């Protein structure tokens, strides 16, 4: 089973984590001003890259903290993990 490095607890088994989708999707500044199509874009549409992808993960069976990870979608390698609020590190794919 793959080990995922929690930024607080260190490497832990994949089964301790939950996936939270794409990271850095900002809540709209003024949601009421959005058209239905813009709202649908915000709620439902996500990137689907082949390569490095910044994602949210939760260490749900451990420290229960959300953090961000850059994962290569082609290899499932976790290239970098970083705590919530920290900027996405530069990654070379």
């Amino acid at each position: 089973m793959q080990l995922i490095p929690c930024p607080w607890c260190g490497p832990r088994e994949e089964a301790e984590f939950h996936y939270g989708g794409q990271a850095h999707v900002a809540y709209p500044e003024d949601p009421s001003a959005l058209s239905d199509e813009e709202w649908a874009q915000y709620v439902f549409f996500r990137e689907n890259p082949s390569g490095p992808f910044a994602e949210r993960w939760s260490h749900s069976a451990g420290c229960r903290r959300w953090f961000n990870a850059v994962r290569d979608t082609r290899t499932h390698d976790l290239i970098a993990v970083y705590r919530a609020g920290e900027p996405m590190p530069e990654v070379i794919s």
Partner: protein
Amino acid sequence: MTVSPLFAWTDRLAALPVNASERPFLSQLTVRASDPAAIAAMGAVLGVGFPAVPCTFTAGSGEFGDVEVLWLGPDEFLVVAAPDLQIPIEEALRGALGSARGSVVDTSAQRTTVVLEGPHVRDVLAHGCSVDLHPSAAPAGTCVQTLLARTGVILLVTGADSVTLLVRSSVAEYLAAWLSDACVEYQT
């Protein structure tokens, strides 16, 4: 009479090669706080400094006797003390927290505690726990929240051959049954 979650397992746990025994009804308080001054003040009230390093715990004694403070997250701790102290400790911690942002909640009923001792403890746990429990990776003072046989536990390494498990009361009997099974090959 109040019956503890593992009362029915007392004799079976004691007969295991890991000498398992329940420590029921410990006082447990979940503390959420991030202000360093408030955390220091709460440590002073207990006579035990709060752990500053993730995945560790601290132990000491003071006004409330022997107390352990467990790191559960960057702003979350579990204070563990002898039974029937949750109300005075809650009041003392709330006083020390003062107006700083945070909370102190009595969670004593959530978990029971099982102490394991003996040379086979790490081997038995390794059957159901993926965390590296070798003494070089998990020395005394280690506190990890992880899955043991798919059960969420807090695992404290208290000495070379001793581990304390905190497990939710409702699944404690499942964990006791799993422990009994995992111990079979170490029976003499």
